[in-house]
């Protein structure tokens, strides 16, 4: 079997709700989407979701090759990027190709990817994540309650700009989740808005009221001294990693004991790179947690990682042109038996989205907020719904 060609479909989607964090508390609802189809000489097509740009630069590295040789092809693509590095847009292209190759490998074997990767179970523990700085108190509560009704007992709240409001919102999240557990798991995520010492002060005050499992990105992604300092000075674990792109970027974090939990995702150079990061973390005794993904497709990878804890479920409604074979039940993502990632594209709906692009508020990705790492610029009245009535 050989890879013969590819097709990239870009489109714009309007999510079913706004998402936002400390960098853009007012939130966005527009998300660019991209689907990469990898074609073979045997009429099997593999696909990956997310980042289809720049594929043309790397495609020659895999053209005519057997997709089942995906790890060797990963090494080959990584070698292709030797001079400029496996970074930025090139890294995203590598990720999307690698994922489509894994999809193909599993489809050729006629099995779901979790089994191709050797996972023993099709169940992945889930936690809820609202990307919720833009939600009113009511919407926030309803989101986590809806998740808790599906058995999810842990939640991750966006924080960072207003301690008093964050404390109130944490209480709401805990209360909403309490129908799933007497002791819900609580995490917070300021998305690098703080300096390390701001993080220590802020988290310490939150910890006077709440017991936190982890605080995510409390300092810049590369700042291993800062991350370690936060880790030593707060009770919560420090989690980071979602903005790194390849294994080499984790070396300083792990070698310097700077991180307690690693957030892994597709952007770590695909399934292969994601697994490398998890394996390196595993050797260091550091657990990993999978970031959210459209249609939860990365749960296939999470299921096979030896040190995986729980995966982020956001569910903002971004699967309008997708059909997928998994669902959340009893607090777990349950993966089905459909081959590959279990994701299929509704080409008709995709075409409709392309021909008549939806319009809405903001657009992913958004910039860093004023004051980040220096001082706090709290949300202005009207910027977030929970500041309207104050």
């Amino acid at each position: 079997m050989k890879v013969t060609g590819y097709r990239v479909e870009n489109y714009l989607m309007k999510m079913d709700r706004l998402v936002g964090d400390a960098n853009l508390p007012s939130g966005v609802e527009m998300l660019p989407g991209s689907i990469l189809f990898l074609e073979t000489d045997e009429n099997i097509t593999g696909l990956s979701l997310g980042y289809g740009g720049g594929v043309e630069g790397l495609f020659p590295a895999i053209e005519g090759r057997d997709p089942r040789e995906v790890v060797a092809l990963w090494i080959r693509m990584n070698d292709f990027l030797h001079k400029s590095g496996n970074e930025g847009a090139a890294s995203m292209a590598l990720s999307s190709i690698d994922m489509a190759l894994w999809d193909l490998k599993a489809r050729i074997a006629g099995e779901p990817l979790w089994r191709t990767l050797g996972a023993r179970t099709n169940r992945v523990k889930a936690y809820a994540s609202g990307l919720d700085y833009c939600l009113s108190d009511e919407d926030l509560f309803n989101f986590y309650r809806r998740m808790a009704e599906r058995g999810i007992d842990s939640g991750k709240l966006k924080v960072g700009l207003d301690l008093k409001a964050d404390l109130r919102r944490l209480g709401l999240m805990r209360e909403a989740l309490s129908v799933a557990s007497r002791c819900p798991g609580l995490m917070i995520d300021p998305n690098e808005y703080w300096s390390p010492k701001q993080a220590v002060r802020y988290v310490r005050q939150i910890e006077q009221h709440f017991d936190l499992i982890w605080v995510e990105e409390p300092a810049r992604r590369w700042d291993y001294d800062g991350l370690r300092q936060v880790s030593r000075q707060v009770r919560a674990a420090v989690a980071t990693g979602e903005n790194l792109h390849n294994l080499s970027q984790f070396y300083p974090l792990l070698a310097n004991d700077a991180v307690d939990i690693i957030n892994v995702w597709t952007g770590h150079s695909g399934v292969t790179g994601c697994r490398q990061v998890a394996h390196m973390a595993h050797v260091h005794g550091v657990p990993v947690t999978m970031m959210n993904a459209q249609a939860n497709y990365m749960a296939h990878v999470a299921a096979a990682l030896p040190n995986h804890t729980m995966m982020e479920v956001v569910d903002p409604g971004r699967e309008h042109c997708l059909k997928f074979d998994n669902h959340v039940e009893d607090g777990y993502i349950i993966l089905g038996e459909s081959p590959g990632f279990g994701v299929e594209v509704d080409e008709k709906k995709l075409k409709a989205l392309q021909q008549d692009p939806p319009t809405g508020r903001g657009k992913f990705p958004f910039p860093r907020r004023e004051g980040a790492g220096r001082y706090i610029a709290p949300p202005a009245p009207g910027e977030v719904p929970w500041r309207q009535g104050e």
Partner: protein
Amino acid sequence: MKLTGVTVISHGRASPAASCSVELHTDAGLTGIAITAQRNRSTVENLFKSLLPGQDPRTVTGLWEKMQQVRGARAEARAALDLALWDLKAKANQEPLWKTLGGARPRANAHAASASALPSDRALAQWTETMMRTHGFRGAQLQLTGDGKRDTWRLGLVREAMAAVTRSPALMVRMGANASTGEVLRRVRKLERTFDVTWVENAAPDREASALKRVSDGIYGAVCAGGRLERLGDFLVCLRRRAVDVIQLDPGRLGITGALQVADAAFGYELPVTLCALPGNVHVHAAGVMPTLMSVEILEPAPGNAAFTTDVRIEQGWAMAGDLPGNGIVPARRGRR
């Protein structure tokens, strides 16, 4: 597909090593095979009985984690089961193991080593003749005798044999047992006046990171260690302190699954890895998916013995896995399947 049973078959006199075949049976009629030492027999059987009946062999990564949780189980037994499970996973896909792992056909860089110390000059000459002149190895590992003059002469012989095949030979040395760190440093430094030494094995026990680091800092060549380690965490101190320059992985202790995990961690530190030889050289299958693979060890270039054959060949000093489904091990008594 479900596992139904295990049979362990002694090779008796058919194999020069005290080895046996571990055969895993399934309800799909496929059999997964691995070769291990006779002494692992009962642990293999017990571990199988306690964990594996009814399990799907394709879920091998998950089963490996399950086997990790059994306390006191001998690492070699766990690894043998892992190897046989991977064989089944590849056979279920009707493809060679190297492809199931995600590799392209491995043409792995290989080096020759000897299971015995080759104490006599005749034994050394014979080994050199076979490995270098017949099989074309461009890298060789020799155990030192401790007699400096004699070691210089012996290494010269090996280097000369390799010079006939390559302009850049790799010369590795293995220290004898119980040499102190100071002695290791003295001996290797002395050799390095005459030879360009690629790496030194057994410079200190695998867990003694301080001693390994001291040797690494004191010689030009690399320190190669790790082959005796059985758990992932055992590698951590060597990685973090950069005490070892070449990470040696024994899939006979770590299984394929564990070896892949440590190889990824080594990649994170940009450290080269080398694989210890397995019977039938089936370790070569894993070479193609290790991003920093430096060389695979070959003790026995022949594809098997009277007890079994494999389709891993040595071609001009490179190790090549073949196209038989699975790891390519075929027991002699039943012939090719």
